[in-house]
C-alpha cells in the first residue's frame, strides 16, 4: 500500500465532511412505497422510451423502458404493480421529464441487498466477456457515482483504445455522503466480485481501488478481503489524500497514475477506466444473479434531517418518502439537495424521485448555509489555486456576467468540471461555478441557434 494520503492532484478544497452523522448507520432495506415514478432519463446518451402501457401490470425487474441505441441503458420496474400513468414529473436537473408512474400492489415487499450471497471462492473465469457485457447492458447499469454513463459501453473491450488501468472509485469526497463507505464495509465481497468481472471483461489485470485516507476501516476491510479472495489477489488498494473532489474521475486518475486526462476528453483516451464501488456491486449482482439495477444505496443526511441514515431504496421513490424514513425534516431545514452540498441540485419539490445516479439527499438547516452576498472580486487568485482543472474561474465568470461568451471560451470554459471548488473558496462570495454553468448553457443554445 502506498503512503497514506500522499497521492493527490493539484487544487481542490477541504470542506468539513460531516460524515459522522451517518457513517455508523448500516444500510437499511426500505419497504416499497405505494407509488413510484421511474424516470425515463436516467443515463447519459439515448433516453429510454416506455415499453409498457398505462394500466399494464408489471413485475419487479421487468423492463419498462429501453432504447436500442448503443449508448443507453434500459430501466426496470423495481416493484410488482400497475402502470398508472406515463407523464411529466419534476426532475432535479431537467425541470420536468417523463416518468413511468407505478402503483405498487404489495407494499410489504422489500428488496434486501444481496451482499451476503457472494462468497470469496468466486471465479470470474466462468463468465465470458461478452456475457458480462450482455448482463450489464440488460441490467441497465449506469455509473452510479453521479454521471450516469451506461456502464456496458465502458466495459466493452475496444481494440482501438485498450484499457490498461482500471480504477475503482471508493472516494466519497462530498460532505455528508456515506453510502459508498457503508457498502465498502458491508458489501466488500460483492464489490470485489464486480471488480473481478470488470477486469475479466476488459482483460486488464492492473486494478486499483482508490479510497480516501479518512476511511481507514474501509481500506483495512479491502486489504483483508483481497487476501482471502483468490480472484481479487492482484487488486491494489490505494489510500489517496482526503480532499474534494478526489472522487472526480480525472482527479482520481491523476492521484493514482499521475496521468492527466485531457480537458474535454474522457479517461479511455489514456487507457483508463474509472467506475465507482456501487457500480461494481451492481455489476456483480447483474452478472451473477441476473439482477437488474432497480435499487441503490442512498444516504439521507444533513443538519436538516432528524435521524440521518443509509437506505437501500428503489429507484423512483420520492425524495420526500426517504426523508420521512430518516425521521423527516427539522424545523429549521432550509435546503433540500439531491446529491451532496458541493455538486447536488437544490429542489423544492419533495415528490422528485431518486434515480440511478442519486446517491444522497442532503438537507441543510439554516445554520449551515452561508448567506451569499456577492461583493467585488478582489483578484485574490484563490479560485485559480483550487481549480482542479487549472482554469481561471474569475475571468470566465466575469466574461459570462458581461455576456462575453467568446472570451469565456477563450479561457476554456468548457473544460470546467463544475466541481464548485471556486465558488466554495471565493471570499467575495461570487457564484463562480454558477456563472460558468450558465455560460455553458448559453453557448449550447447559441450553437443550436446558428446552423452550420
Amino acid at each position, binding site marked *: 500500500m502506498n503512503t497514506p494520503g500522499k497521492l493527490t492532484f493539484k487544487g481542490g478544497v477541504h470542506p468539513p465532511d460531516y460524515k459522522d452523522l451517518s457513517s455508523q448507520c448500516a444500510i437499511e432495506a426500505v419497504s416499497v412505497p405505494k407509488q413510484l415514478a421511474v424516470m425515463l432519463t436516467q443515463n447519459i446518451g439515448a433516453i429510454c422510451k416506455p415499453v409498457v402501457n398505462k394500466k399494464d401490470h408489471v413485475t419487479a425487474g421487468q423492463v419498462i423502458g429501453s432504447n436500442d441505441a448503443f449508448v443507453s441503458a434500459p430501466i426496470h420496474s423495481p416493484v410488482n404493480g400497475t402502470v398508472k400513468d406515463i407523464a411529466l414529473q419534476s426532475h432535479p436537473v431537467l425541470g420536468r421529464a417523463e416518468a413511468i408512474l407505478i402503483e405498487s400492489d404489495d407494499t410489504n415487499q422489500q428488496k434486501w441487498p444481496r451482499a451476503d450471497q457472494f462468497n470469496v471462492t468466486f471465479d470470474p473465469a466462468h463468465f465470458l466477456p461478452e456475457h458480462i457485457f450482455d448482463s450489464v447492458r440488460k441490467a441497465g447499469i449506469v455509473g452510479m457515482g453521479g454521471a450516469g454513463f451506461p456502464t456496458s459501453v465502458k466495459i466493452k473491450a475496444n481494440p482501438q483504445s485498450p484499457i490498461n488501468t482500471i480504477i475503482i472509485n471508493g472516494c466519497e469526497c462530498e460532505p455528508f455522503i456515506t453510502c459508498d463507505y457503508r457498502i465498502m464495509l458491508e458489501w466488500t465481497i460483492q464489490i470485489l466480485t464486480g471488480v473481478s468481472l470488470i477486469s475479466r471483461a476488459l482483460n486488464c489485470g492492473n486494478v486499483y481501488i482508490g479510497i480516501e485516507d479518512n476511511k481507514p476501516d474501509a481500506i483495512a476491510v479491502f486489504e483483508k478481503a483481497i487476501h482471502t479472495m483468490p480472484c481479487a489477489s492482484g487488486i491494489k488498494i490505494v489510500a489517496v489524500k482526503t480532499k474534494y473532489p478526489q472522487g472526480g474521475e480525472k482527479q482520481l486518475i491523476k492521484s493514482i497514475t499521475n496521468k492527466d486526462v485531457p480537458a474535454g476528453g474522457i479517461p479511455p483516451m489514456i487507457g483508463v477506466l474509472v467506475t465507482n464501488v456501487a457500480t461494481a456491486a451492481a455489476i456483480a449482482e447483474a452478472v451473477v444473479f441476473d439482477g437488474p439495477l432497480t435499487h441503490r444505496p442512498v444516504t439521507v443526511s444533513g443538519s436538516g434531517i432528524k435521524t440521518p441514515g443509509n437506505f437501500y431504496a428503489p429507484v423512483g421513490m420520492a425524495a420526500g418518502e426517504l426523508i420521512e424514513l430518516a425521521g423527516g425534516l427539522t424545523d429549521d431545514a432550509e*435546503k433540500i439537495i439531491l446529491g451532496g452540498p458541493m455538486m447536488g441540485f437544490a429542489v423544492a419539490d419533495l415528490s422528485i424521485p431518486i434515480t440511478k445516479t442519486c446517491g444522497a439527499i442532503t438537507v441543510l438547516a439554516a445554520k449551515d448555509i452561508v448567506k451569499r452576498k456577492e461583493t467585488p472580486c478582489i483578484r485574490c487568485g484563490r479560485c485559480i489555486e483550487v481549480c482542479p482543472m487549472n482554469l481561471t474561474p474569475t475571468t470566465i465568470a466575469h466574461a459570462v456576467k458581461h455576456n462575453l461568451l467568446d472570451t469565456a471560451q477563450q479561457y476554456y470554459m468548457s473544460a470546467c468540471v463544475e466541481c464548485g471548488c471556486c465558488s466554495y473558496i471565493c*471570499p467575495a462570495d461570487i457564484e463562480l461555478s454558477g456563472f460558468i454553468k450558465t455560460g455553458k448553457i448559453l453557448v449550447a443554445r447559441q450553437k443550436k441557434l446558428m446552423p452550420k
Partner: protein
Amino acid sequence: MLQNIKISPSPHISKHHSTQSVMLDVIIGLVPAIIASLVFFRMRAGIVLASCVISCVAFEAVCNLARKKPNSLGDLSAVVTGIILAFSLPPSIPFWVCIIGSGFAIIIGKMVFGGLGANIFNPAMAGRCFLTACFGTMMTVWTVPATIDSAMPQVGTVSEAPAAITQATPLGLIKDILKNKPAPQDEKIKAVNGIFKNMVIGSTSGCLGETSALALLIGGIYLLIKRTIDWIIPTAVLGVAFICAFIACEIDPHHYVLPWIHLASGGLLMGAFFIATDPVTAPLTKKGMWIFGAGVGALTMLIRLVGEYPEGVMFAVLLMNSISPLIDRFTKLTPTGGMVNA
C-alpha cells in the same frame, strides 16, 4: 413546512471567510509594525496613522454616497489603505498632508476606477506618489526615533523645529557615506553594521512603518501562515532584490552596501509582504506573481542603486501595477491535460 425551502445553484456550502476577514487578517499582520511605530515615534505615529485611516474611511464613505453605491466600508479595505499609506510617510508629516494623501489614494487611486477590485494601482502607493510630487521636502524630513533621542519632542513641537531632530534614513545615510566620503574599509563596515542592527530592531529614522524589519517580518510570516498572502510575491521581490544587491556589491564594494542592508531596510520588507501582495493590483496566476514580484524587486534595486532616490519600492510597485493586466494575459492558464474538443 416547505415554505422555508430555498433553491440556488451548487455548491451549497462555502468557506466561512469573506473579503472582510481577508482584510482583517492583513490588519492583524500590520499590528506588530503599528506597535513598533508607536514605540519609536510615539504620538507622531499615532497622529499620522489616525489621520490616514480616518480620512481614508471617510473619503470612501463620501465616494459611496456620491456614486449612490452601497456602503463598502465593511470590507475594511479602506482601513488597510490608510495604514499602509501612513506607514509610507515620514513621522513628521503634518496631519493635513495625510488627509490630502488619503484623498488622492481613495478618490483617484481607487474609487474612480470603480472601487475595490477595479483599481489598477495600489491606492496607498498612488497616494504616497502624489504626496512625493507635491510635498517633496516634507516627505524627506526624517525624525529620529524616540529610542535614540529620548529628548525627542512630543506632539506639536515637531513641526516647529524639524531640523533639530532629523536624520537621514539609513539608506540615504549610507548612500551619502559611500558616494561622497569614501572612508577606509573597516570604518565603513563598522558604521554599516551598527546601522544593520538598528534597522532590524527598527530604531532608525525612516517612514513610520518601515523602521522595524523585525516587526514587518513577524506580520509577514503571520500572513504567510494564515495563507492570506501567497509566498510567491514576497519570495520573488526579496530574492531578486538580494541578487541585484549582491551583484552590485560584488562589482563595486566601495559604492554599494551589503545586500543584507537592502533587505533589512523596511521599505523593501514592507513592499514585499504588504504592498506588492495587494491582490487587486497584482497578477492572478502563479507565473504572473513570479514575474510581478521579480519586477518589483529588480526595479526597486535599479532605483536604489542607480537612481537618485534612496528608496525605490513605491515606484517599483506602481510601475509593475501598470503592467499587471499585461502579465495576466501573458500567463494565461491552460487546462490540466491540455484541451481537446469533445
